[in-house]
């Protein structure tokens, strides 16, 4: 009986002393933090994807609160609406941004791009890219080991094992750019999502001369510049035997899609029309 009472008293005193110490320390070393940081953070997705260029959502929230202007600060994952709310909290106006989406600029599926070798080493694109051109003869195309799939914090990428290419799940992709950083071949680009998801892009990254590119892959961009001549909006440029469509200038007229001799230009999410290679496009987009 005595022991029980003694222990209760001793432990109780230790507890009270401890609580007092903790209280004093908490008061003494209190760091004042702007309460708005918590408010802003609550609006953010909390995936810490790094798409904003900061080390995480809280870091981004702190940056927003401390900033004099919201220019250059944007959470790609939450989009304009949330940035507007953040602007209201911190008393600044956020610039309107267009939602972005990751686009895979390679269409060399297994049957269109012959595989010359089989890789048995560590199954990552980074290792394969350091060795050479990979399994196919294209030195710029997708390596197919899925580093982008692994890097995506939103589960918006999946590997299609039939084509050997990754696919972007449109509803889930927020355009954070984690896959862009993970791809050693730099074939993933963030482009404007476009009205109702409609967008036109060159699904190839091969920078070799036409004949060489065609030998490696049947759907390679050969840099023939037919698309550039066809484009009435000055949106297409050819550099290093490769066509590039500027998504800011593109008016989605799809004239380039029809003239491309190798069907390397893809148009996705357009209402069904007699667009060539349309079905394939939807699979791989």
């Amino acid at each position, binding site marked *: 009986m005595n022991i029980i009472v003694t222990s209760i008293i001793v432990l109780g005193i230790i507890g009270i002393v401890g609580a007092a110490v903790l209280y004093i320390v908490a008061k003494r070393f209190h760091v004042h933090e702007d309460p708005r940081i918590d408010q802003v953070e609550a609006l953010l997705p909390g995936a810490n994807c790094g798409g904003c260029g900061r080390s995480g959502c809280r870091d981004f929230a702190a940056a927003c609160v401390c900033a004099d202007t919201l220019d250059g600060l944007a959470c790609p994952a939450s989009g304009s609406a949330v940035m507007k709310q953040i602007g209201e909290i911190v008393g600044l106006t956020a610039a309107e941004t267009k939602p972005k989406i990751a686009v895979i600029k390679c269409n060399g599926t297994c049957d269109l791009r012959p595989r010359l*070798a089989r890789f048995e080493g560590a199954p990552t694109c*980074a*290792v394969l890219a*350091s060795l050479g*051109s990979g399994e196919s*003869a294209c030195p710029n195309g997708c390596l197919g080991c899925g580093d982008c799939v692994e890097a995506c914090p939103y589960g918006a990428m999946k590997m299609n094992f039939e084509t050997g290419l990754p696919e972007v799940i449109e509803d889930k992709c927020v355009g954070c750019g984690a896959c862009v950083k993970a791809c050693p071949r730099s074939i993933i680009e963030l482009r404007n999502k476009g009205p109702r998801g409609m967008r036109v892009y060159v699904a190839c990254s091969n920078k070799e001369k036409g004949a060489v590119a065609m030998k490696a892959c049947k759907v390679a961009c050969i840099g023939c510049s037919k698309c550039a001549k066809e484009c009435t909006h000055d949106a297409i440029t050819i550099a290093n035997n490769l066509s590039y469509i500027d998504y800011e200038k593109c008016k989605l007229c799809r004239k380039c899609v029809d003239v491309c001799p190798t069907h390397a230009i893809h148009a996705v999410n357009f209402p069904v029309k007699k667009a060539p290679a349309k079905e394939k496009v939807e699979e791989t987009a």
Partner: protein
Amino acid sequence: MKLHTFKIGGVHPAENKIAAGKPIENIPLPEEVVLPVAQHIGAPATPIVKKGDKVKRGDRVADAGGFVSAPVHTPISGTVMKIDVARTPQGMPVQAIYIKSDEADRAADAEAMANRETPRRTEAEIAALDGKAIIDIIKNAGIVGLGGATFPAHVKLSPPPGSKAEIVIINAAECEPCLSCDDMLMRENPRQIVKGVELLMRAAGVNRGVIAIENNKPEAIAALTEASSSVPGLEVMTMQVKYPQGGEKQLIEAVIGKEVPSGGLPIATGAIVQNVATAYAVYRAVVLDEPLMDRVLTLHDGETGRNLRVALGTILATLVDGKEPEKIILGGPMMGRTASTLQTPMIKGTSGILLDSRYAHRRPAENCIRCGKCVEVCPMGLEPFLISTLSRLHEWDDAEEQKIANCIECGSCSYICPASRPLVDYIRLGKAKVMAAMRARAAAKKA
């Protein structure tokens, strides 16, 4: 007799040196050569010829693109057809010079080949050369480390200020399985090699030289011991048969017992290591005034092995007859690189072509069973299982702390791993990342 070796780690893979004892066959000059400008470590060479130019055998067609670089010479006379993209064995594009010969060119080359062993410099002229002059000849002859790493030879012979060479070590260990090109070169040309070593010693300004040969090449040891007896300060050292005996750091430790400091250059120990084929090339450059235009390689297809002397720029497919191999490895089975095609020119670093189906596949990787064998065999004293995992998980900081940059990529860990894990693959990736970060940090510090 005491056999020298490095202290920790090492493996002993099956040797399979079936080409040993097969005399070196001289492959006739091809009618067309493709000479890539990047045949060495360092800056690519810059072409100095243009389409339509006539060139003669031994002409320089590309100049060194920097200090750590080497010129390229054409082994055939002919016309420059084009300067265009060629493929590396791994399928990556690289700039190359295409040269084609006609009847007259071939006749001239045949004559030049017949007289190629005639010395162009007299004994007195050679004796009058000082170290600097020899290094210049080596530099202008485009000689690079012919063991496979292709580091320009003149760079190693000109130590940075503050360090001093004391010994030249000739790497004749040839510890890679299957390869026997160095072995045969030593058996057939011991006197020339010793002359080359002597020139290297003079170029480096040292009076001690060691030719390190593994114990499994008794004929070569005998031949070189006899040939080197006349040169003061030069000795032949017999090494234990153990992989990677021919690794630069391992060889230095085995021969002089000093360790290359972590992150430091081998010259910090006072040693300059050159391959035995490089020494032979130095002999040819100085005595015969012939730039590096060919090399000896071992062609091994599982059943037969041959040693061939092949002109640089020869398309590899012309050396191999017929059937599509299951896998092509350029170099030895331990450190060689897999090639996806034989439609690629041979370069200065091609020491072997392996078409052995025994090496064609890896066993599928399984989970690490924590046996620690990789730690036991690592000649650098690293923990391969740990650094490869850190590298796989992109934990570059931790990998740097675990000294991933010290890895010599010898592949002993991958070879011994009972779970067949691709340890070196990941380590190589992490090493590249960490070393790039270290260089960037050093550059930022300087700025």
